[in-house]
Every structure is written in structure tokens, then in C-alpha cells.
């Protein structure tokens, strides 16, 4: 597996030398320590402790309103979090926002390609905003487009693309800057099974070639089972279970004393289902979940 080089950046501030040393030695792609985030009175993330190892595909799973997207938005600098709660390759997003962003490739939940531009222009925009030089831009954009199998459609307007093609185009946009951490927020939501497979094949192939770390949220347990090295089950803002899919299945199978090995869907229900039942009994908490969902809907 090839290793990516460290992105260019300076740490001239002496006060940050310790952080820079941590960053140089970092083997963990993401470390969250007691991460908290609230929307008004609703605590979306409540003391999240999480470590994503460098080079792995890590799945963040959980029911709607569990806090996955809020956690992802905190890691990707979209939400302001206090210093010390998050580290990305040793850098604190609260203090080194630009350095962290240079290491990130991000694909949000929505199909976010600009339909008024061609596929190539969409990727080229991201090459520009990541400071790819004019000399290298065309070749880099072409490689990113080829990496996701869109070369033939590259000069068509993105509004003519299918959902799966848009998702692959977004991957190309994220890959053009050679990110060390690729963050995918429900990348296959709303796609048919064939499109889902093609998106995951692209992720798998590029990850194998570049050695990048992938942090993904998904509701599809079969995908998590097949493609993630480790998964964390999140519920009500906290991690309820963490391990390889195999470990979680075995653990739940032993706990429930099942005759047949459980699926990851069973594991999901085991950790998330009971929590929702409790929420229904407690009106206040159910309102909180509903409010979180409304907020999530408002922010897209």
C-alpha cells in the first residue's frame, strides 16, 4: 500500500510545536475525546470518544438523530468545537482549521454536484480551491475523473448524470486534492443496489491505491459489514458498541444466546432499538429527538 505524503503547511507558532510533533507521529487519523455538541437544548453529540486508525475504513452507524452527522460536521470543521475535543492526524481543528481541511475530502449526504457545470468543471473547481497549479490541474482532474470511471461522461453537464454517477463525481471532487482522510456522510443513500456497489468499488479501489483513511456513516448494515474494517454504533450522541463487524456479531450472538449468528442488522437493532422504545416512554426525550431531526432537516 502506498503512503501519502504530508500536506504542505507551516507551524511557525512556537506554541503549536507540540501539536506539530503529535501530528508528525500521528497514527490515528481521528481522535475524539469527550466530544459534545448541542443545538439549543438538544444535545446531538454527548461525550463521544472515538479513534479512527490511519488507513482503515471506519463506519459510523446509528439510527436517525443519533448524532452521526453532527460528529462528522465537528470533525470536518463545519461546526465549531472547543480545542482538545477533536484531533485529525494530530491537528486540532479548533486551532489548525486550514491544515485540517487540506487533509480532508468530504462528500455530504446530499447529491451536491453543480448541475450547471460539466463533470470536469465540477472537479476542476475543487482542484482550484485546493490550490492545484494550472500546470498540473488538467492532468490531476483527468486522473480523479478516471479513478471513478467517469471519463466518457466528463464533458456532459452534471444534471444529466444518474444518482450513482453524481456520487462518483463527488468522490472525484474529494479525491482531486489527495486527501489523507475521506469523510463520506451516507454516500449511498437513495441509490439503487448497482449504483451502491459501483460507488463502494470506487472507494475501495482508490483507498487500496492511496492508503487513505475512510470515515463513513451509513444506514446500510450490509455495506458496513462488507466494506468497513471497524464500525461504531452510535445512539443518542454516544458510542454504544465498537469493533469489527465480526466482533460485534459474535458479541451480540453470545449476549442473546442465539442459535444462529446474528447479522449486523440484528446488532443495530440490539443497540439502537431499545433506546428508541425508551424515548417513546419519555415524552421529553422524544421531543428532543424530533427537534434534532427538524434541525438536521433544516441544515440539510
Amino acid at each position, binding site marked *: 500500500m502506498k503512503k501519502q505524503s504530508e500536506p*504542505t503547511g507551516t507551524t511557525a507558532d512556537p506554541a503549536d510545536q507540540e501539536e506539530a510533533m503529535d501530528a508528525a507521529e500521528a497514527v490515528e487519523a481521528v481522535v475524539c475525546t469527550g466530544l459534545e455538541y448541542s443545538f439549543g437544548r438538544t444535545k446531538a453529540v454527548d461525550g463521544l470518544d472515538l479513534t479512527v486508525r490511519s488507513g482503515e475504513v471506519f463506519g459510523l452507524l446509528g439510527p436517525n438523530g443519533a448524532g452521526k452527522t453532527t460528529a462528522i460536521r465537528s470533525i470536518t470543521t463545519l461546526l465549531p468545537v472547543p480545542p482538545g475535543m477533536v484531533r485529525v492526524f494530530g491537528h486540532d481543528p479548533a486551532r489548525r482549521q486550514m491544515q485540517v*481541511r487540506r487533509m*480532508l475530502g468530504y462528500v455530504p449526504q446530499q447529491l451536491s454536484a453543480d448541475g450547471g457545470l460539466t463533470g470536469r468543471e465540477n472537479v476542476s473547481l475543487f482542484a482550484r480551491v*485546493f490550490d492545484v497549479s494550472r500546470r498540473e490541474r488538467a492532468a490531476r482532474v483527468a*486522473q480523479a475523473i478516471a479513478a471513478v*470511471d467517469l471519463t466518457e461522461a466528463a464533458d456532459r453537464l452534471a444534471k444529466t448524470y444518474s444518482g*450513482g454517477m453524481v456520487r462518483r463525481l463527488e468522490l472525484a471532487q474529494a479525491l482531486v486534492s489527495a486527501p489523507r482522510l475521506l469523510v463520506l456522510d451516507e454516500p449511498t443513500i437513495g441509490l439503487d443496489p448497482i449504483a451502491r456497489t459501483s460507488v463502494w468499488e470506487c472507494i475501495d479501489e482508490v483507498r487500496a491505491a492511496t492508503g487513505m483513511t475512510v470515515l463513513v456513516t451509513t444506514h446500510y448494515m450490509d455495506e458496513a459489514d462488507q466494506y468497513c474494517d471497524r464500525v461504531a454504533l452510535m445512539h443518542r450522541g454516544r458510542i454504544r458498541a465498537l469493533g469489527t463487524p465480526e466482533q460485534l456479531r459474535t458479541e451480540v450472538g453470545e449476549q442473546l444466546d442465539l442459535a444462529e449468528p446474528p447479522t449486523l442488522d440484528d446488532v443495530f437493532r440490539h443497540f439502537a432499538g431499545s433506546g428508541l422504545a425508551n424515548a417513546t416512554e419519555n415524552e421529553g426525550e422524544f421531543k428532543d429527538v424530533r427537534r434534532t431531526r427538524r434541525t438536521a432537516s433544516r441544515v440539510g
Partner: protein
Amino acid sequence: MSVVPVAPPPGSAEPAAAQSPVAAPRRDLGLLLVPPPARSGWRVVLARILAMCVVELQKLRHDRTELYTRAVQPALWLLIFGETFTRIKAIPTNGIPYLDYLAPGIIAQSAMFIAIFYGIMIIWERDSGVLTKLLVTPTPRAALVAGKAFAAGVKAVIQALVVVVIAALLGVALTWNPAKLLGVAVVVLLGSAFFSCLSMSIAGIVLTRDRLMGIGQAITMPLFFGSNALYPVSLMPGWLQAVSKANPLSYEVDALRGLLIGTPAHLGSDFAVLTLSAGLGIACASALLGRLAR
């Protein structure tokens, strides 16, 4: 060896190549292994402004419908309002035909109409995830807002060119001095940057398209009628003259009139006010952009 189905299975729009159950052969990803070197300081801002302006031009190249439809309203103002008031001779314009007096005002108005609804585009970009993705790039918010503001300006300059051509066809005695026309482009760019930032700032406060549409419509007419676009400020009541003095559109119109038809203008103060307004607008919209991201 990969097995490719003869025809795509029903129910998927994915192309046949992507439906192979076996991953495609490895491609050359050499450049995707090395992050690009980072720009810093003012070069980041310039690079982002350029990137956003290029996107705006690319979109206009693919679809010019908006350019044509937006040309209708200024054409009607000049043709109907302009021609009629030229005959009435009700507005004192120091001996200049009213149509000539009106043309710079209509250029400023059409540019403002483009810019004042730019916040809707920001909200659309928020809803569609485009803004979120841009906010995760190494782009300071001020650079992103400046990029969007000047992209609105580029669109407005192209619109202004269309109105200049219409005015010329109607017989307005415009200057064709390249330096003055360049000045016109700069004035329109700065004015549009301010109004687009005003719109993005309101977007950052109201957060929804519907509310922004209402507020946009509510402020557009006062800005237009409270300026010197249609009549001299000296004709206004005292309180409206005060509004006009605080209205950047008045300075834009004054500069455009001076540059295009050679009326006495305060170009120095006009450029200063427009530059300051654009700067303040960028600062204000940048501060409020975070609300859209949450």
C-alpha cells in the same frame, strides 16, 4: 476476467462499465497521491475569487437563458419609461435627454437585481450541499464570500454590457472610451459585490429562501427609488435625500453617469464609497456565513 452484462439490468441508470461485479483494472492515480502545495495570504483570496468567477462564466457559457430573460426588464424601462418621460420633459436633467440620463440608472438597477437575490443561490447551495463542501476546503470564509460577491459582479457586468448595447441601439449618446468602459465595469463589479453581500448577509440571518425572497423584494424598490437612478436627488424631500446619501446605489449611478455620458460626477468619493461598502459587505456576510453551515 471481468464479466460485463450484455445489457444493463433494469432499474439502474448506471453505465454498463460501472456495473461490473469485479473492480475495473487499476488506473494511473500518481497525481492523486501528492497533496498540492498550499497557497497562503492574499493569494488564497485572489485564487478563490478567480475560481468562483470562472464557475460563473462556465455556467453562463452552458446556459444563457437567464442573460436573455434578464435583458427584458431593463429594455422595457428604457423603451417605455425612458421614451415617455423624454417626451414629457418633467424631470430636470440639465439639458441631457432623459433617456441618456436614465440609461446609467437602469444599468445599475439591472446589476442590483442580479446581486440582491444572490443570497437565494447561497441558500440553494446550502440545501444542496455545495456550500458545505466548499466550507470544508482550505478557503477562509471571507475569501469564499469575496469569491461569490465578485462572481455576482461578473454576471452583473455581462448584464450591464447587454443594457449598454440596448441603450446604444435606442440612441443614447454613450462613451466608447475603453478606459471609461473599464471604469464602468469596475463600478458595476463593486456595486454588485456590495448588494450580493447584503443579500448573503440577510440569507445568513433569515436562513430560508421564502423569507429571503420577501425581504429581497421589500428592499429592492426602496433602494431603487431612494437613489438618483430615475431623478436627481435635489428633487427629493429632505428625508429621502438623507436615505439617498446612505444608499450605495446612488454612488454607483453617479459614477456610471459620469463615466458613460460625461455628467459632472464625484468619481473619487463614488469609488471610495463603493469599495468601502463592498469591504463591509464581505466582512458582514463572512461573519454570518457560519449560521448557514450549522
